[in-house]
């Protein structure tokens, strides 16, 4: 009795401590329950004590001494849990045990309530933190998708972000339509998503409501999903769909502008004896940066070449369309016989009457290939570059005027220059020499250095564009290079013994003959005969020692001499076929001598210069 009374006092202290623990929330709910049970067992000498959730019948039934129970009630009187005490091993509870149990249940209830409240607050805070991090991830994703990215990269980003935020094992995005694709993000590397319906899904809808595809999440226990997850997935799907829709539109616009741009550039450059010419156009870094740069080259009725490079200020379809207009007008003026300066003057009138904000820079030049005479004029355009063998590079800035559309009647100057054989003229747009990371002066120096190191115009223009793009040029660029070929003493070329080589033989031979002043018809006929002989040299040898053919040509005094060699033995006798017709054709065009040896066959073609 006494003992129990003391026990009761101790109990009160323990209960107060419990309450503190609950209040301070240093002990979690399970801990609080365990302490209550322990104290109760000690203080009532119960054989066992436990706290079970909810309400239990006040007294146990069945045989033997009665069980003792006490209900832990919440603030509103509801039964939170029940303290259940089994009677001591020998006999029943002593009378005060009931009082102890009641008191313990009373204080314990307060502790349980505090611990429970705290646990709920903890859980809510954790959910909040989860939401905050999900919102942050959403916002970050939105920022990333705002940058121009390829569609597959966007989709991969959104898919993985959705999977991570929701905590699913797999996320799958599918796109249908023109550019169909499927992106799978997995928590671990193995396998793919399970068959069957996804646990969460959201449609991908374009800005116009068009159905683009879906974002789906798999293998997350549905008990874990809440409406926040659903909302996040829907948000991400909207972000992705809107970005993809925008990107598709941009890509379509870029394709349209690029197609238009290319359709407005000349399909091919004129083939003129005595010059080698090459031109290239490159759009800016982003395809959408198609601009109004162009190049043009045409042969005038008198055989002169009219060369143009220009740049309409602006980007996209409008700039490309304006470029097309200017290009065709300039061609017309050139055909009408206007000199470069006069042609630009006319073009300026046109640009001014267009009335809009059109603004363009153009350089135009007229070249007489046999004499190398050049006349040029520039409307605010970077100066043409001339590279003369043995004399270095020089910019022709003697005829600079203002851009087209800047003034109603500016003064137009004409520059003149005689280009010596072997020299190269380079016309280009500013994209080639100027960028954010490259000042104009440095760009011009670099251009001059590159042009001096390179003879073949085709290689030169490729090289120049490569230089410009390696500097991350943002602008588009056009470049046209033309070389006056010098008459070499001898032409010699060795190529793989393939039919595909023969076109190169023809091209190089034409250039050589043109540079040596051989007229067009003779050049055509010699080239045809040589082409036939070269095709024979590719086709006929059996057991060749070398898989190559060699062509040599020279203009000696009044005669043209071409030698075509192979390094194998011909089938004997030479087959009668289409090639036989080739030999007949050769004989109609030139004197033909065929010398066959063990080391190979040599076909000698000769004819007078004209």
């Amino acid at each position, binding site marked *: 009795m006494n003992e129990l009374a003391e026990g009761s006092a101790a109990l009160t202290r323990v209960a107060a401590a419990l309450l503190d623990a609950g209040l301070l929330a240093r002990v979690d709910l399970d801990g609080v329950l365990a302490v209550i049970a322990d104290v109760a067992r000690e203080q009532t000498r119960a054989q066992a004590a436990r706290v079970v959730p909810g309400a239990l019948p006040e007294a146990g039934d069945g045989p033997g001494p009665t069980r003792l129970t006490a209900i832990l009630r919440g603030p509103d009187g509801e039964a939170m849990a029940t303290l259940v005490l089994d009677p001591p091993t020998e006999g029943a509870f002593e009378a005060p045990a009931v009082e102890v149990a009641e008191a313990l249940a009373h204080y314990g209830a307060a502790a349980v309530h505090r611990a429970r409240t705290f646990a709920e607050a903890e859980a809510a805070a954790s959910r909040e933190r989860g939401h905050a991090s999900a919102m942050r991830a959403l916002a970050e994703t939105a920022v990333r998708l705002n940058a121009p990215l390829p569609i597959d990269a966007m989709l991969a980003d959104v898919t993985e972000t959705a999977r991570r935020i929701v905590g699913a094992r797999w996320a799958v995005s599918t796109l249908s339509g023109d550019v169909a694709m499927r992106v799978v993000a997995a928590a671990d590397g193995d396998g793919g998503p399970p068959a069957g319906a996804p646990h969460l899904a959201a449609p991908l809808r374009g800005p116009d409501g068009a159905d683009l595809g879906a974002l789906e999440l798999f293998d997350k226990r549905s008990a874990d999903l809440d409406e926040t997850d659903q909302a996040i997935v829907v948000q991400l799907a909207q972000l992705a769909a809107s970005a993809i829709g925008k990107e598709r539109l941009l890509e379509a616009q870029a394709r349209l502008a690029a197609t238009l741009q290319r359709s407005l550039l000349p399909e*091919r450059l004129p*083939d003129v004896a005595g010059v080698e010419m090459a031109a290239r156009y490159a759009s800016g870094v982003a395809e959408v940066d198609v601009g109004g740069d162009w190049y043009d080259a045409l042969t005038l009725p008198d055989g002169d070449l009219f060369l143009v490079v220009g740049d309409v200020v602006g980007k996209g379809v409008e700039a490309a369309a304006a470029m097309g207009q200017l290009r065709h007008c300039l061609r017309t003026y050139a055909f009408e016989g206007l000199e470069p300066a006069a042609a630009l003057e006319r073009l300026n009138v046109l640009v001014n009457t267009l009335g809009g904000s059109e603004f363009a820079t153009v350089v135009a030049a007229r070249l007489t290939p046999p004499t190398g005479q050049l006349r040029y004029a520039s409307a605010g355009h970077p100066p043409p570059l001339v590279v003369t063998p043995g004399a270095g590079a020089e910019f022709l800035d003697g005829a600079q005027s203002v851009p087209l559309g800047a003034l109603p009647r500016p003064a137009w100057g004409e520059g003149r220059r005689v280009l010596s054989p072997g020299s190269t003229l380079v016309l280009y747009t500013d994209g080639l020499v100027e960028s954010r990371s490259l000042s104009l002066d440095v760009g011009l120096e670099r251009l001059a250095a590159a042009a001096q190191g390179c003879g073949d115009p*085709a290689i030169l223009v490729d090289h120049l564009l490569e230089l410009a793009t390696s500097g991350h040029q943002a602008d588009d660029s056009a470049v046209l290079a033309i070389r006056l070929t010098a008459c070499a003493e001898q032409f010699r070329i060795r190529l793989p013994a*393939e*039919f*595909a080589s*023969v*076109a190169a033989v*023809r*091209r190089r031979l034409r250039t050589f003959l043109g540079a040596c002043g051989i007229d*067009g*018809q003779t050049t*055509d*006929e010699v*080239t*045809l005969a040589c*082409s*036939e002989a070269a*095709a024979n040299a*590719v*086709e006929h040898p059996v057991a060749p020692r070398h898989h190559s053919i060699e062509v040599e040509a020279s203009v000696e005094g009044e005669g043209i001499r071409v030698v075509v060699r192979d390094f194998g033995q011909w089938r004997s006798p030479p087959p009668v*076929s*289409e*090639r036989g*017709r*080739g030999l*007949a*054709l050769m004989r*109609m*065009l030139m004197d033909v001598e065929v010398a066959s040896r063990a080391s190979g066959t040599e076909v000698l073609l000769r004819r007078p210069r004209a």
Partner: protein
Amino acid sequence: MREFTVEAQALGPHAIVVVTGEIDAYTAPALREKFLELVDGGVDRLVVDLRRVTFIESVGLGTLIAVRKRLRRFDRNLCIVLDAGQRSIYRTFEITGLTNIFPIHPTVEAAVEDCLDESAA
């Protein structure tokens, strides 16, 4: 550098073939293939538009002759379209005597009238 292309528009037994580029031993097989495909498909009247051809050599001429031989079995011919500016190509036809064999016209319309419209007769 220059691309070689063969494009054909066939309508029943009629076809117009447009060739672009240089016809040599390297490119002629593609041309021959296209012709065979058309003739095997029942085409027996052909207009071959060579206005965008910049070079032709014997194997190309041989290809045209081979097709002509097949068409002659049906008592048909093929017409060539050449532009007045293509002096060098015309000359190649001329020195090989092919101007006597192939009707050569300056426009597709004229060639069509000559080679395709005879069916009406």
